[in-house]
Structures are given as C-alpha cells and as structure tokens.
C-alpha cells in the first residue's frame, strides 16, 4: 500500500510539510513560498522551518500583513508560470482576502476554458481546542469545499502531510491545504501524538481525492478528517472494549471527495457517524450523510449521526470550548443512540 511507512523516521506534520516544500523547491525552480512570518521565523506553526536558510529571501518571502495583496499576487504569479505556495496564517483570516481565493484562484481556469491554469497551494491552519476563541480556532472546511474550482485537502498525520503537500505543489490546479494546529507537533499547541508518524525521506505523493480506511471494522463507519480521525480512532478503541468493531475512514481530501470509499464502508457496516470539527449545519457532515442516503438508503440499519461543532462562534473559556468540541465520548454516545 502507498501509505505504508518505509522506515523509522518519525516526523511531525510541521516538519513533514517543510520537507515536502524543500524537496519540491529543489526539484522545481518555479516553486516559491510566501506568507506572513514564513521566512526567518519558519512559520508560526513551524511548517516552513529551514526553507529560508536554504533558498534565501527571493524564494522564501515574508509578506506584509496584507492577505489580499499577496494571495492575489500568488494568483498572478501562478498564471505566469510559477508555482507559489502561499500561507494564510489562520483560516479565520479568509474574510479579508476571499476574493483572491474564490473569485480569482478558483475561477480563472474555468474563465479561460482551461487555456490558463493557476497551479498554486494555499496552506492554512485550522482548528481550536486551545482557547484561542472565535477568530483563531475555526475549521471552515465546508466553506472552502463548497466553492467550485479549488481542491481541498487536510492531513491527519505526517505521512499524509508530506505526500499531500508534494502532490499539491505538483498539481496544475489550486489546492487549499488545511492543516490542523493541534496536529502540527508544536508542543505549545497541545500535540496529538497519533499525528507524528514514520515518514520517508524520499519524495512521494499521496493521492488527492482518495480517502483511506485507517481502521477496518464491521459494525459502524466513523468518517472524519484531520483531528476528527484521531477522535474517531480513540472512540473505536473504546468501542472495541465492548466488542463493537468500528471502521474509521480518513477523508484526506474534501475536493475531490472520495464518496465511493464511504459508500462501500457503510454498505458493509450499515451505520454511519460523521465527526467534523467544523460547524454543524451546511457542512461536511451533511454532505457525507447525503452521499450515503442518496446512493442507497436501504443500506442503513439506523439513522446516520454526526458529531460536530454547534452553530455558535467558538467560545474562549476552556470549559465552554471543550463542551462544544467533538470528542471520543460524544462519538460513543452517538453510537449508543443508534
């Protein structure tokens, strides 16, 4: 299998992302990186560490705090033949620059009838759980995945993080690369140990648009991405103690969405729970459930369930935020109600 680690080199997602960028920059002179604090500082979340020292300020550019300016510049550079990797530090900041993203980056290939392309990567951090409140903790997966013209990926571990970054840089289309802050392996953000995996040194790609069955089971299908996968795996371990055998699917990509892997799993288990740290309504969880029910509702032995963030801004106080976030116990409770 493509995703089997080939050595014993454990990397964090942050280091895996940086390594992929470094290797692609070495391989392809058209690749450059820009964003806020991504040069000497190495990225607030560590994902560009070492690039500035290796490639210098021409190809590893600190930008002004000016997301509209530099993200629309990335669009112009991509259309002129470069392959920019540009960082939107927190996905929550999309509000100041979304025109560059959804009206330009995502539409110019279509507006040219495919004669022009916009090969760029927009990497952006997602997720809460560390009391950063409602403008620095959102996921917004559904917001980006809803709008046509951009691929959307979100790794749950370092192996996928490296392979997805390599694939995203090589892709001729715009790719939104959403990395969850609590999976980054930065100690100060409360690291999820399951995200730090053996990661091959040599370059490789992880296919965009292909989900992974990360734990096989027969009684219920748990579908998630990024942090949701780790919550699902923990819930599956606890359910196993009661003799319930849960299958866990890591979506890996939201666009294109691998509907087939989800449909096949539910055909086997008959039960579906979607775990999504994004808001409850109009998002990924609803899309996954619709995918299964539209295909063949008779495969379901129980109504599908979802464990999501309620439709409220993300609260600051620790106990309030934790009350809202998905966790393994909520997944188990959802299963018990089925």
């Amino acid at each position, binding site marked *: 299998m493509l995703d089997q680690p080939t050595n014993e080199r454990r990397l964090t997602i942050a280091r895996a992302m940086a390594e992929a960028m470094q290797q692609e920059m070495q391989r392809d002179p058209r690749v450059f990186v820009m964003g806020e604090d991504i040069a000497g500082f190495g990225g607030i979340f560590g994902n560009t560490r070492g690039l500035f020292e290796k490639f210098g300020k021409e190809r590893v550019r600190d930008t002004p705090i000016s997301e*509209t300016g530099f993200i*629309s510049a990335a669009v112009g550079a991509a259309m002129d033949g470069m392959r920019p990797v540009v960082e939107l530090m927190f996905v929550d900041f999309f509000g100041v620059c979304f025109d560059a993203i959804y009206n330009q980056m995502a539409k110019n290939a279509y507006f040219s009838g495919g004669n022009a392309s916009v090969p760029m990567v927009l990497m952006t951090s997602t997720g809460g759980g560390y009391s950063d409140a409602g403008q620095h903790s959102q996921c917004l997966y559904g917001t980006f995945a809803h709008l046509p013209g951009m691929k959307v990926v979100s790794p749950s571990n370092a192996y996928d993080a490296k392979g997805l970054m390599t694939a995203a840089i090589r892709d001729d289309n715009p790719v939104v690369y959403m990395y969850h802050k609590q999976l980054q392996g930065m100690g100060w953000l409360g690291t999820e140990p399951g995200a730090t995996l053996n990661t091959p040194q040599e370059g490789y790609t992880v296919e965009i648009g292909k989900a992974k069955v990360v734990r096989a089971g027969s009684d219920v299908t748990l579908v998630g991405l990024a942090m949701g996968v780790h919550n699902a795996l923990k819930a599956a371990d606890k359910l196993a103690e009661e003799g319930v055998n849960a299958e866990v699917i890591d979506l890996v990509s939201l666009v294109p969405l691998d509907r087939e892997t989800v449909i096949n799993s539910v055909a086997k288990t008959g039960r579906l729970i979607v775990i999504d740290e994004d808001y409850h309504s109009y998002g990924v969880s609803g899309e996954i459930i619709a995918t299964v029910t539209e295909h063949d509702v008779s495969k379901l032995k129980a109504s599908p369930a979802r464990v999501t963030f309620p439709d409220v801004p993300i609260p600051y106080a620790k106990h309030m935020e934790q009350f809202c976030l998905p966790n393994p116990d909520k997944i188990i409770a959802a299963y018990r109600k089925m």
Partner: protein
Amino acid sequence: MQPTKEQSLWMYENMVVSRRFEEAIEKAYLEGKTPAFNMANGPIPGEMHLSNGQEPVAVGVCAHLNADDIVTATHRPHHQAIAKGVDLKRMAAEIFGKSTGLSGGRGGHMHLIDPAVNFSCSGIIGESCGPACGAALSRTIQSKPGVAVAFLGEGAANQGAFHEALNLAGTWKLPVVFVIEDNSWGISVPKAEATAVIRNDVRAAGYGMPGHYVPGNDPHAIFDVAGEAIARARKGEGPTLIEAETYRLAGHFMGDAEQYRPKGEKDALFAKDPIPKMRERLLAEGCTATELDEIEQRADSLVADAITFARESDYAPESDALTAVFV
C-alpha cells in the same frame, strides 16, 4: 517621449477598432431587447460595459507593450484587450457565448483571459492590481523580461485591494505600472463624493513610488507618461502609479439611463470625443486623409469579420458547462 508616426497610427487604428467594436456590440446587444429591455434576452445577454471614450488610455499605455508583457484589466475590458492584442474574433465569439470564444462561453465579457498575449481581467473592482504584482514578481524571480500593467477605474482606487497591491509593489520594487482610468463616475456616484483626494496620483507617495496625473484624455500625453513609467519598470527601478483623465461616453452598463449626469455633461463629452480629435491632430501633423480613411476602413472590416465569425460560430454543447473547472 513622443510617438513615432508609426506608433501614432497604431494608436489611432486601435482606438478606431475599439470604438467600432463597441458600436457593433451595442447593436447586437440590443437585438431581442426591445420593446421591453430584458438583460437576459438577445444574442448577447448579461451586463455590458462599453468602453466608448476611454480608448486613449488603453492605446497610450499598450503602445509600449509587447505580447510578453502582462495586462490585467477590469470589468470594462474591451479597449484594453484590443490594445493588448487579444484576438478580436475569439473575443467577439466569447461575448456571443460561442464555442470559438476565448473560454468557449464560460467567462463572457467581464472574464476575458487570453494566455497567448498575457491578458486577463476580473469583474471585481480593484482585483486587477494584485495579480499584476504577482506576474511582475514572477518575472523578477525568474529574471525574465516583461512588465505588468494593471488597469483600474478611479472607483477602484478606494478598494483595499488597490492599496495592498501598491504597498506590495512599492515594498518589493516590482516591475508593475498601475493605470487608473478616471472617468469620474463609479456607476452613479461622482469621484468627488467617493474619494478623499482630488487626484489619485498623490496616493503614490504613500507607497514609495512616483505618481502622475494625465489630464485631457489625450493619447499622446498618456503615451508620454506611460512610456517613462514602463521604461522605468523595465530597468528594474520599480512601480509607478498613473491616473489619466478619460470620458465614459456610454452608460455604466447598457440600459443605464444616466439620470445622475448633470444636464449637458454628455453633450460636452461628445464634443471632446478623442477619436475625431486624434484624426484632426494626425492630419495637422501631415498624415493624409486617404491614409486615415484606409485605417478606418480596415477597422470596419476587422470588426465586421469578428462579428460575423462570432455569429456564425456554434454554441458549445450545454454539458461543456461542467468541464474545465480543473485543468
């Protein structure tokens, strides 16, 4: 910097082609829209922003550009596209929504993209600026020749995107020139009611670049100022901001009754129509009437051919709507 005779004639020809093109588009646009005006009807549906009167800015700037240079344009892009050398037939076909159009009918008149001559535009005000910076950055990183020109209207100079792009260009000393076509109206709101300064060229000082204002909707004056700015960018000396006075002889879009205009303003503008003025100037400079008549006839037939091509082309299959989202 003054144009050679050849450059002057090139500018005149492109102004005439542009005007004739808009006149032909206007005629076709109105087909099927009378007696009741319904924007969705006729061979050219949707909004239509004509550039009549604004030709001098496009030709005065683009006379200094070649196919390798980059132009990012606005929601009113026809004159800019023509001056940059976008294929007239494919552009006309795009506006008619045909399969032979630049994008096969997916983009329409506000979304003309022609990679062959590095031309693109956006229907969102101010959004020509950032991509021009990026294209200029691309040339800088690759040590490849070429400058980028972003066209925008004076209304766009109040958008955040404009100010962010100018700061980026000034900070990174990019080979980019920002050209504001000041037609003095943001749809119905006059410039003075929407802009904190009388002239936008002064805003250049805030971004560490020179700024120039060009009055008179005069192609020769624009040629002069743009030539220096583009030469400066080519030499690696950084960006420039130009604001050029121009006149919108049409409404904001077709169907605009223009009741916001002061009485008599339109008549005064037509009296200053830059195309007859340029013809007079060329005659005074020694061009013959025959020479100019030939240019006008050539423009007529270029436009007629383009419109015929567009009308006779087929529509793409409906299902093409579902393709080219990704390459």
